[in-house]
């Protein structure tokens, strides 16, 4: 049985990301390109696991890079990059959720009748296990940051603007829910 490794992405990228970001701040396009290469796949997984729709996840990722481009002065050299990156991703996801909900409401209003297909979540293409859908968005986000993106508890707390204790509690509750859904309570 494969064993869970808590930080899959971290080992590949830490150490160079911060340097790349500093070069990106001094308008080094090559460093910007390398950052896109290093971060886009894991951010795409992060967004996709939450919206479960490829075009929406791509939209969110594009929105993320626009925001990161505009806010690059707010990164301080010497600070870890991932909490900064995921704080922007966290906000991108929240804004994206609100916009999609509003957009769905508009579409329903335009049609003049309640179309259940329009109000329903977008069709799944290639989802993470359906179980994750059952978790509240905040718990799912915490688990994804920890397991898919490899952030530590402290980094997740910084990215989501909450305390370490709150993050740990969310993760714990999420695992308990997952256990119940898997039919294997501890």
């Amino acid at each position, binding site marked *: *049985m*494969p*064993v*869970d*490794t*808590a930080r899959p992405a971290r080992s590949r990228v830490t150490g160079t990301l911060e340097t790349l970001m500093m070069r990106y*701040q001094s*308008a080094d*396009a090559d460093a*910007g*390109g390398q950052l*896109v290469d290093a971060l*886009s*796949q894991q951010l795409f*997984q992060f967004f*996709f696991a939450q919206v479960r729709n*490829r075009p929406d*996840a791509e939209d969110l990722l*594009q929105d993320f*890079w626009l*925001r*990161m*481009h*505009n806010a690059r*002065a*707010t*990164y*301080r*050299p010497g600070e870890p990059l991932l*909490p*900064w*990156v*995921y*704080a922007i991703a966290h*906000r991108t996801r*929240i804004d994206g959720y*609100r*916009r999609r909900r509003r957009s769905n409401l*508009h579409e329903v209003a335009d049609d003049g009748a309640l179309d259940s297909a329009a109000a329903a979540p977008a069709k799944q*293409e*290639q989802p*993470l*296990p359906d*179980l*994750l859908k059952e978790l509240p968005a905040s718990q799912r986000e915490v688990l994804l940051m920890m*397991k*898919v993106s490899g952030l*530590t508890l402290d*980094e997740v*707390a*910084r*990215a989501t603007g909450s305390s370490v204790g709150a993050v*740990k509690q969310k*993760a*714990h509750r999420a*695992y308990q829910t997952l*256990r119940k859904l898997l039919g*294997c*309570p*501890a």
Partner: protein
Amino acid sequence: MNCNDIDDLLARGEPLDTGAAEHVASCPKCGPLTNLWKTSAEGLSAEEIEKLRHVATGHLHPVRALPRDRTLVSLIFGLFAVFCISAGAVVTMGAVRRAPAMKLSIFLCVIAACVVLAALVTVQEIIPGAKRRLQPGIAVVLIVAALLAMPLLLFPNFTTANFFRWGIGCLRVGSLCALAAGALLLTFTAKYSSGSVLRMALTVGCLSGLAGVAVLTLHCSAWNVPHVIVWHFGVLAVGIAIGASFGLLVRKVKDRFWMRLRNF
């Protein structure tokens, strides 16, 4: 090692040690839980990554990283002080001439402390992923409590003479000062903000409301509790309300723009 220990390890985000790995390998209850993360969506294609590169590197020019929190808070505080003294000079500093110097100093020091708290929250909002030294809700409670305590402790005078005549004048002066301070602060914060528009507008509204309160403290010598609490501190409520309305409006405009762009 049992299933609860595995839950604790997973919740802490720690890698599984040998004992835990042995448990996971043999336990039918824990195996599926740790395997959840193996499945994922198909990654991005080279073409899609190239498109993102264009987004990230288009119109690239060098930027200077923002200074440390302490420097930013000092900068906001300095701007605030310069603004209040200038606005006080324009609307006249009646209280400086008439009010007891010691009490006025204490009141101004408490307002200054409130400004430092609000500035700290504003800086936290500007920097994504910044360490949260102070929760915004706690900051608001502290500011309101400190401000309310001041008139009650410093001048427990409850007369209501000229309550509306003087009060409306104070509210007008304070609100105008708060609006001007808010506009000034927005030029500084909007440039860098990548977080919640609403929260940023609320913190800026709170800071600008405090600017209005500070100017009124320098300007108005009607030191009685009902007047100060209703009309002076009312400016803080006006600042927060205008900030919230402005934040909601900006968010709505941004969302509409996004939806049009998406439909286009």
